[in-house]
C-alpha cells in the first residue's frame, strides 16, 4: 500500500489526521525517542523526521535553532538513518517521512538516499527547496521506490500552478497555510478557507495543512476542509518548555474538543 492509500484508509476512521514533526538530534536522540513514543501512542498518523541542515532557509527561529544545536552536538546524516530505522521498526503504525533540504540529499547521493530510506521503511520525503522543475530525477526515482515525493501548495500558487505541481507529487500535498516561514501563527479565517477550497479543487491527493497550527481550535477548523493537520514548531516549543512527558496530552487534546 502506498502512502496515499494508507492515508485514505485512515480517513475512513477519523475526521482528520495528524502529522507531527521533529528535528533529529534536537535536543538529543534520547528525547526524540520519548517524544515519538508519545506521539505514536496517541495516534499520530505521520511523523516528519527533519535531518538537520546548516542553512534551513524555509524555517523560522525555533526550528532554525533546533537545526543548529543538533549539528553542534555532532549529529551526522548516517546517525539519522540509523535512528529512523529504529523508529520505523518500533512504531509500525506510524508513517515516517524524511524532511530535509536538498543539499543533504544531493551530497548523500540522490539514488542512494532514496534507496536507503526505502530500505529502512520510510514512506516519503519533504524537501522544501526542490521545486518539481529541478527535481525530475528525484521524482522519477521516488516513484520507482514507491516513496511519496511531497509537493507544496502555497497561498501564492495560482490554480494552474497547483494542478501542475499536484500532477508531479504523490502521497499527499503539503498546503502551506500562509506566507512566511515555519512557526508563526496562522489565522484560521475566511481567506484560509477559500485557499483550501482552491487546493481541494486542484487535486485528489490528501491535503495536509501546516505552518503555525498549534491547538485544538486550529485542528477543528481544518476538519472537512483538509485531511491532515501538521504540527511542527508547537511540539518543539512544548518539549523545550515542559519536557517530553507533556507531549502525549498535547497530542490527545488536539484530536478532541476541549470544553
Amino acid at each position, binding site marked *: 500500500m502506498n502512502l496515499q492509500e494508507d492515508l485514505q484508509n485512515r480517513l475512513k476512521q477519523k475526521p482528520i489526521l495528524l502529522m507531527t514533526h521533529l528535528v533529529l538530534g534536537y535536543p538529543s536522540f534520547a528525547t526524540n525517542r520519548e517524544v515519538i513514543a508519545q506521539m505514536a501512542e496517541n495516534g499520530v498518523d505521520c511523523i516528519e523526521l527533519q535531518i538537520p*541542515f*546548516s*542553512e*534551513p*532557509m*524555509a524555517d*523560522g*527561529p525555533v526550528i*532554525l*535553532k533546533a537545526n*543548529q544545536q543538533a*549539528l553542534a552536538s555532532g549529529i*551526522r*546524516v548516517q546517525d539519522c538513518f540509523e535512528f529512523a530505522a529504529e523508529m520505523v521498526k518500533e512504531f509500525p503504525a506510524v508513517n515516517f517521512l524524511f524532511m530535509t*533540504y*536538498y*543539499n*543533504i540529499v*544531493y*551530497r*548523500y547521493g540522490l539514488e542512494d538516499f532514496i534507496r536507503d530510506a526505502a530500505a529502512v521503511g520510510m514512506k516519503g520525503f519533504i524537501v*522544501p*527547496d*526542490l*521545486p518539481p*522543475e*529541478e527535481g525530475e530525477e528525484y521524482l522519477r526515482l521516488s516513484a520507482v521506490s514507491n516513496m511519496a515525493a511531497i*509537493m*507544496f*501548495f*502555497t*497561498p*501564492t*500558487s*495560482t490554480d494552474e*500552478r497547483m494542478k501542475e*505541481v499536484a500532477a508531479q507529487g504523490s502521497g499527499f500535498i503539503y498546503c*502551506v497555510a500562509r*506566507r*512566511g*516561514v515555519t512557526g508563526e501563527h496562522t489565522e484560521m479565517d475566511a481567506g484560509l478557507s477559500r485557499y483550501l477550497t482552491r487546493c481541494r479543487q486542484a487535486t485528489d491527493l490528501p491535503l495536509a495543512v501546516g505552518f503555525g497550527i498549534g491547538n485544538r481550535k486550529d485542528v477543528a477548523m481544518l476538519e472537512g476542509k483538509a485531511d491532515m493537520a501538521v504540527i511542527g514548531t508547537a511540539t518543539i516549543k512544548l518539549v523545550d518548555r515542559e519536557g517530553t512527558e507533556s507531549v502525549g496530552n498535547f497530542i490527545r487534546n488536539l484530536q478532541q474538543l476541549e470544553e
Partner: protein
Amino acid sequence: MKKGYFGQWGGAFIPEVLYQTFTDLNVAYEQARADKDFWQEYVDLMENYSCRPTPLTFAENLSNRLGGARIYIKREDLNHTGAHKANNVMGQGLLVKRMGKKRVIAETGAGQHGVATATMAARFGFDCTIYMGEEDVARQRPNVFWMEKLGATVVPVTDGSKTLKDAINEAFRDWVTRMDDTHYVLGTVCGPHPFPEMVAWFQSIIGIEARKQIVAQHGQMPDRVYACVGGGSNAMGIFQGFLDEAEVELVGVEAGGKGLETTEHASRMVGDRAAPGIAQGYKTMFLQDDDGQMLDTHSIAAGLDYVGVSPILADLGETGRVRFEAATDKEVLEALTLTMRTEGIIPALESSHAFVQAIKEAPKMRPDQAIIINMSGRGDKDIFTIAHAFDDPSWKEFIIDRAKQYAE
C-alpha cells in the same frame, strides 16, 4: 540546456511560495533586457550619478618597479559609494521601479552592498531593510552607520556563522513573508536564476568600458585580466568584456585566508575543501563537509568571506576559461602597501587579492604585454578594518583616546 544553467551549475532551487515571484521577476528582467532604452537609461543614470565610465589608470610606477608587463587598473573604486556594487544596485533599482514594488531588502557582508542598496533606496524612494551577520556588523561598524543614516533598517543576523550566508538566509525569510511589495536586491552573481545572469548583465558595464579603454591606451587586447572572487560579481563584470577573446587570460583570485592548507580560508575553486552542492537556491562549488553542512570560512576581506561562488564562474573554471588562484591575508597586506606607496591608490582588501596575483605574475611577463587589474573598491573608507589589519599603533592610540572621551 535548462534555463539558468551554466554547464552543470546554477538553476533555481526555490521554495514553492516564491514560484510566482520568480516568474514575475523573470518576465520583468527579460523585458528590460530586450529593451534597448532600458540599458540606455541605466548607462545615463550611472554616468550622471556614479562617475561612469570609471577610468582605466596606467600604473606606470608599479609597472616599472616590477619590470614586466604594463599594469592597468580599472577604477571601480571611483563609483559612487566606493565600489562596483553600485552598478548592480542601480540596475536592480530601475527594475524595481518598473515592477512597481516599494520596498527593497538586501544581504550584506562587508557592508558595501548594504550601503549601495541603502543609497539606491534613498535615491528611488524605497523602504529598505538590510540583513547583516552580527559578526560583520561588529567588524564593519562605519558601514552600518551610513546605512542607518541613509534611512535603511539594519537587522543583525545572529544565526549560524553570523556572516554573509546567514544574512542571505534571513533575507530569503523576509522575502517569503513579504514578496508582494518587496524585491530582494541580491548583491552578487549567485543565488537562484535569474540573479546570476541579471547581476552579471548589470556588471558587464565594467568590461564594456575596460575593453574600449585598453584598446585606446595599449593599442590591443590585454594579455591577462585579474579580479578578486567572492561571490564573483566584479570578476564577471570585467571578464565579460574579454570572454570572446581567447588569447586574453582571465584570472580569478579567491581568499586564501591563513593558507589553503589550513581550515581558515574561503577558496572554492582552488584548494580541496569545496565540493558541488545545492544551497541558497543554486548549484555551485560550496565549502562544505561530507554530509553537506556548510563550513565556516575566513578572510581578511569580509566581502570574500562566503561559502559559495557564482555558478557562471564555476562553469568557466571547469571549462578552463578562467584560471583560479588564491591570495593569503598576509600577501594581501603586502600588495596593498606596495600599491599605496608606488601609485597613491588604496585598493579595498577584497580588491587587493587581485593585486597580489598580478604583482606575482607581472615581473615574469614582457614589457610589451599588458594586464588589467579590476580594482573593485576603495580601501580608504574601510579605515577601521585596514588599520586593524595593519595593527597600526598610532591609530590604536587615537581610538583609545576617543573612547575615553566618549566614556566621560
